[in-house]
């Protein structure tokens, strides 16, 4: 699914990722943990294709080189990034945005676009499944949403777009336990043999609900340790300090 070899990324001449290696197979859930400033969000941005980074190394998604591919093409091909800080877009209705977004993805795959009725049916189904209040659909995109609502909206988008690789950038930060459960439910109910997840988090708490197949520790732009689920619990006890 995803092959990263010796990935380096800098922004404004500052090197953030310094030779990162990571391989994710279909159906796997990988967690990336690490202290502040280790490069976790940079990795998420680089994978989704945000402008402004200078990149070298190998970055392949389903066998295709990602480096030259613009943001929207990556999204259309099935890379989804749940933002750490989802943006507020005034004047844009959440429902319209979701529909435009889904239809862009469907169109790029050569599939039929959904009409308003079929879309509404789908979106209501997903809201019900996740336990998200439908009212957010008629509101302006993320405007005045609470932290929890914003993150739930990210998971709803993930459910609707049905991507192959889901990157969750600190989706758990700022969430109460109920919202955390909704996020975890969204991920767990989507898990299947074809779909992969990259869960970026500070804390082990989210990993109590989303059981990862692998846990990686990112420090100073590199993955310094890889293990199974227990590694997260170990880190919770010892902290990141000891790794350096």
């Amino acid at each position, binding site marked *: 699914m995803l092959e990263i070899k010796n990935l380096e990324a800098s922004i404004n001449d500052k090197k953030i990722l310094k030779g990162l290696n990571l391989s994710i197979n279909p159906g796997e859930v990988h967690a990336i943990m690490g202290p502040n400033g280790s490069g976790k969000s940079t990795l998420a941005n680089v994978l989704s294709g945000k402008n402004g980074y200078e990149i070298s190394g190998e970055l392949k998604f389903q066998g295709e080189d990602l480096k030259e591919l613009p943001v929207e093409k990556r*999204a259309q091909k099935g890379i989804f990034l749940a933002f750490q800080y989802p943006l507020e*877009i005034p004047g844009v209705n959440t429902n319209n945005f979701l529909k435009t*977004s889904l239809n862009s993805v469907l169109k790029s795959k050569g599939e039929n676009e959904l009409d308003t009725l079929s879309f509404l049916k789908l979106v209501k189904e997903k809201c019900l499944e996740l336990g998200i209040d439908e009212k957010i659909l008629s509101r302006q995109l993320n405007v005045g949403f609470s932290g929890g609502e914003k993150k739930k909206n990210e998971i709803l988008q993930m459910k609707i777009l049905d991507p192959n690789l889901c990157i969750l950038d600190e989706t758990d930060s700022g969430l109460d336990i109920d919202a955390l459960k909704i996020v975890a439910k969204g991920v767990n109910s989507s898990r299947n043999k074809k779909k992969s997840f990259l869960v970026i988090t500070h804390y082990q708490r989210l990993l109590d609900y989303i059981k990862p197949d692998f846990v990686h520790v990112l420090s100073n732009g590199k993955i310094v340790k890889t293990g199974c689920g227990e590694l997260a619990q170990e880190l919770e006890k010892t902290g990141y300090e000891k790794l350096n």
Partner: protein
Amino acid sequence: MMQDFEINSSRIDKIKKISEKEKNYRTQNLDFFKSVGFPNKRLEDWKFSDFKDIVNKNFDELSIQDLSYNTPKMNLLKDFDHNYIFLVNGSLHSSNFNFEEKKKIKINIYDKDINQQISKNPLVCLNHALSENGYFLEVERNYKFKKVLIIYNYFTKDIKNKILNNKNRIKINENSELHVIEYTVNESKFNFISNVHEDIELEKNSKLKSLYIQHDKSNGFFHKYIKNKLFYNSDYSNLIFSSGLKFNKLDIECDLIEDKCNCNIMSALFLKKGEHQEIKTRINHLAPNCTSFQKIKKVLNSDSKGIFQGKIYVKNVAQKTNAYQLSKALLINDDAEFNSKPELEIYADDVKCTHGSTSGNIDEDALYYLMARGLNREESVKLLVKGFLNDIIEFIKNPSIKIFVENKLEDQINGR
């Protein structure tokens, strides 16, 4: 480059049935116009719209439009039920008030008001000197219009290098209400100037909602001066969606003469290549407990130019005034230009006045967010533009009119 624009005083002699007094008034105005000419940037009110320069660049010749015209075929809008007034080149052609009690409505050719002072605006003087046509609409007491009134403002295809001067007046009497949409349809492919003077009077407890929108793009150069007089507890709102014009200057002056009046001026404009739009307002708070609210939003593409000059004046007796003014511009292109001049002049001490003005480019982070959901750059920009203008459309309460305006704006944004 245009040769000098000359108007012979004998032009006034040709105007039928005017008294000696009126003739004098017209001559005074014409003399003033002739001494100043078209307004240029040296006049403070025209510093961002050098009309003299614009006329010189766009007209090889220019003359006064005659009243005769061939009546164009009028296509009524089918989007919602409405009454209508049909103007051809600014002249009142016909009207239809089938949804209303006809005895409550008076519609006539404008009766000339020659008691106005000589204006400092040369175009207003030119209008006072030469206008012969336009409408006077009066709504009797205690009558609320059941359906909206559309003023179809047609310009015929033979108008070329002409200037048209028209005068309109709307008077709403006590406890009455009217909702007007001015819908401009331009069949001329040539350049011309439309110079309109409009008087609006709102008596006690009356209400006027007006909305401006165009049928399509136009090579017309439009100037309109609107003078509003608001009496006790009256309510005036003006929504401006006049995109697609080569030049448009709306100069709106609002006198809040008695207690508890409210005045709203809102605009959502999407300007493209070569377009120039100015909205100039002056809200005169002359009595206590009045409110005014102005929100102007412009999206500027290519080399377009948008201007907002807004003044709020609060007289010493106008305590408890609540006045709000905000202008915002979204510049899509580095060549686009936005000028804003907000002004407050306050002589009362117990008032709340807020004003602000911002301009900026498209938010790159917002673009990234939308594109990360599969929308390409163009689609994302369009979505952000629509979002930016949307809160003005939200002020339209009638659902079918709202959809109509949304579709028009969408067509403009999509370049149709």
